[in-house]
């Protein structure tokens, strides 16, 4: 094993939310603007390098 190198093993977090407003639930967290998402990622120390989405969800490739 190398003395030091890049840590490949990931940490994975899955969070589920609920709400009562059907209008919000339809899009929910997808309503978050990019600045808010980046602020969350700042806490983690990542940034978005690429993104794609469809009618169901948004997917972001992050730095690191």
């Amino acid at each position, binding site marked *: *094993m*190398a003395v*030091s*190198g*890049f*840590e*490949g*093993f*990931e*940490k*994975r*977090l*899955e*969070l*589920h*939310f*609920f*709400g*009562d*407003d059907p209008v*919000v*639930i*339809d*899009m*929910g*967290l*997808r*309503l*978050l603007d990019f600045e*808010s*998402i980046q*602020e*969350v*990622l700042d*806490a*983690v*120390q*990542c940034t*978005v*390098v*690429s*993104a*794609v*989405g*469809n009618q*169901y*969800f*948004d*997917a*972001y*490739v*992050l*730095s*690191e």
Partner: protein
Amino acid sequence: SSLFVYPTKVIIKTCGTTQLLKSIRPLMNYAQDLGLNLCACRYTRGSFIFPKAQPFPHTSFKEEVIYLEENLPINLCYRKASVMPSKMPSHSWHVFTASDQTHLVAQTMPAEITFTMEICMTELDRVLARKFFRRANDGKNGDTAGKEMTELTGIDDINPSAIICDFAFDPCGYSMNGIDGDRYSTIHVTPEDGYSYASFECVGSIYDDHDDIAKMLKKVVQVFKPATFSVSTTCSSHEVWTHVARAIEPLGWKCRSCVMDEFPAAGSVVFQTFTVARR
């Protein structure tokens, strides 16, 4: 690293020395602004190759659990933390789940029973790993170089119906997200010899054709040909994990250990480890 944002669900997976758990508070705050409250949390990881390099709160699983306990709302009262061992002490699976009563009940009668499969591969085949290094002065950017790696390695054949968003890092490394309807898949690669690593993760339904799951697994391990890998399967009520060894062992890997544990709301987590059969 990857982030998936659904209307009421977020999945975030990060490598290196990122401080993933620090995303919980801001995510909860932003969700609350939208009228959404946290009802369940699941945190998983393998064993770090360089644990001493990890910053707080990832300095140990114990610290991570304390951080989670302190930062999750009290209504997520059904909590469990466990380290699932394997025959290789350096390959353990760390799981923490927390759920509130509503989510716990909802999970007992879901509309569709889904599973999550997380594969962690180490000691990648050196020739195959070389494909994840950028060529010097290739005239490409991260997106175009990523697309080239996706095609060159056969990653685009794992699920041909997925839309792939890929990125190649400089000088090496690769990440991709696949989207196929409401399902995601993701691959991350650290190709450097000595600590090479690749991960694959996907979601599926227990009603999927078992042959399709087997075919996908075979394609994944053949892209990297790792000496060692683990497969963690999380599913509320079905033995999807039984198809894993059946698909992989004929290709030359042997299942060395298999452990199972139950988690409130998340269901059964099955952790299997494989090594090359010749060893």
